């Protein structure tokens, strides 16, 4: 049976919204204002302020990814160990924010962390000194972890839930204690989920400009902000596209590494 035609709408969608924009980014990134070919926009990444923004982006998204992993793994284990019905409250706690708009969620954190925001309000009520929370790298990391944590939990939960309890029992049966069983069986068997969770957190964290704009103010520039500004305020689409191409290389790199660990697509959660 030939059901290929069923994919036609998707094909249109893919061409219109993925292929064409991508080609345009490549075109703009490789040309100057006159339309002549140039590497300039790509090489622009080596300018000090761009390197600084890229390094900061890599650092903050790396830290966020690690924090997400450290939070998500135990959580996923708890979710798997208990019956889902008993933990539905915990699940809801994590799913509920996802139903809210991404911008709204991040704005909420802005209100919480502001100089005269909710948190400092509570602190001053308790006669404690106010904290400088907003517009710090810490605030950006908090925003990233908060927004992207579910994308780490779900793939890890998926692989953990698939591990046969008797495989764990077999390891215990053969003399392994709880820690040995975790290190030699559970952890290696969950690598695919970890790998896909890492990409699903690292990639959006690396490219975000919303979180850094709202929680980092104008002082902290991530590479996402730099690119965004080239497109909006500076109206230099060529430079913005060139830098995007560089960023794309990092994204592709992390996806290649991830798919190496997740050969069968087991961790693909969503």
């Amino acid at each position: 049976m030939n059901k290929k035609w069923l994919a036609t709408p998707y094909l249109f969608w893919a061409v219109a919204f993925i292929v064409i924009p991508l080609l345009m980014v490549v075109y703009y990134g490789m040309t100057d204002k006159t339309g002549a070919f140039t590497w300039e926009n790509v090489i622009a990444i080596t300018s000090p302020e761009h390197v600084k923004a890229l390094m900061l982006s890599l650092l903050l998204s790396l830290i966020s990814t690690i924090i997400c992993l450290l939070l998500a793994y135990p959580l996923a284990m708890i979710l798997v160990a208990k019956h889902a019905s008993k933990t539905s409250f915990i699940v809801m706690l994590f799913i509920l924010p996802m139903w809210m708009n991404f911008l709204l969620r991040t704005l909420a954190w802005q209100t919480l962390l502001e100089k005269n925001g909710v948190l400092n309000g509570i602190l001053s009520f308790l006669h404690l000194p106010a904290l400088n929370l907003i517009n710090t790298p810490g605030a950006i990391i908090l925003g990233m972890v908060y927004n992207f944590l579910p994308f780490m939990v779900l793939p890890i939960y998926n692989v953990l839930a698939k591990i046969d309890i008797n495989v764990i029992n077999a390891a215990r049966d053969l003399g392994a204690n709880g820690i040995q069983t975790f290190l030699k069986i559970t952890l290696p068997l969950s690598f695919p989920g970890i790998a896909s969770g890492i990409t699903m957190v690292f990639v959006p964290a690396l490219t975000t400009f919303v979180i850094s704009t709202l929680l980092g103010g104008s002082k902290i520039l991530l590479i996402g902000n730099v690119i965004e500004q080239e497109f909006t305020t500076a109206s230099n689409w060529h430079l913005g596209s060139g830098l995007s191409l560089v960023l794309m290389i990092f994204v592709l790199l992390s996806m290649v590494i991830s798919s190496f660990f997740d050969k069968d697509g087991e961790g693909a959660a969503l």
Partner: protein
Amino acid sequence: MNNKLIDLQHISKSYDGSIILDDLSLYIRENEFLTLLGPSGCGKTTTLRILGGFESPDQGRVIFGGEDITKLPPNKRQLNTVFQKYALFTHMTIAENIAFGLKIKNKSKAYIDDKIKYALKLVNLDGYGNRMPDSLSGGQQQRIAIARAIVNEPKVLLLDEPLGALDLKLRQDMQYELIRLKNELGITFIYVTHDQEEALTMSDTIVVMNQGYIQQIGTPERIYNEPENAFVADFIGDSNIIDSIMLHDELVEILGAKFACVDKGFGNNKPVDVVIRPEDVELREPGKGSMEGVVTHLIFKGVHYEMEVMANGFEWLVHSTAMFPVGTKVSIHVDPYNIQIMNKPVSEDEEAVAINE
């Protein structure tokens, strides 16, 4: 074979209010091949899990070599399990699977390599060490699961329907293989199956279970020839189970006809159940047996013919190498020692069994 190696004392276990095991007591002797036999859901795996330490009983104790191990975690117990669905480590090679327990115990590399070689040879899978579990057939994976367990030289091997997933031919081969292994290694086997033939072929002792109760413990011969109640008789092989009356010692009235038997001490004119195996029903020419009947069904079964004979309102199941066509008038004879008399169920437990049939 006389030491009690394992002693299960008054084990009870329930899940969500439903009782799975009820006051189960059982001992296993050193070097014994003991089989837990019973229908699906009767609590065989649960019993094994309690032995292995993956489940703790609500009540009762597990004694191993005189020591109470009820609360001991699985990794501290001197027994190994072959799980119902192999449970191999799919991220490791066959050799790494087999080496797992030995590496945990910090054995030397030379020792481990020797053991891997030895174990692979033992299960007839020489040279499979570098393969991944996924690339093996079900039967081969099963044998690896066995190899992985026995390299640890456990005192006791627990096997949960290890041959359940295999086809008939392979199952029979593996049955002999397992018996050979057991004799070679001299370890105690606790084996779970719901296949009565397998149990009869392999075991020293069979424990017949139903609904969390032990129905009978005994040698295969005893279980087969002298079932203690209707459930055991029905579960182990085909049989004719007939409502009868024990007239007095050594004489029983079956369906209105008198049969000599060898049982005594049931009292006079007492209602009993009688079990007669189909191969013990002898068909003779009309008038030469104890009860007249006519053949109603005939099937060729390979080794024998299976027939049904209607006599005195009861459909008798008969296995015989002689063939009697449908419609043949026959007379039924049963030798006295082939008539097994059983008390009618009295206790609540046995009542439950009878209703369940």
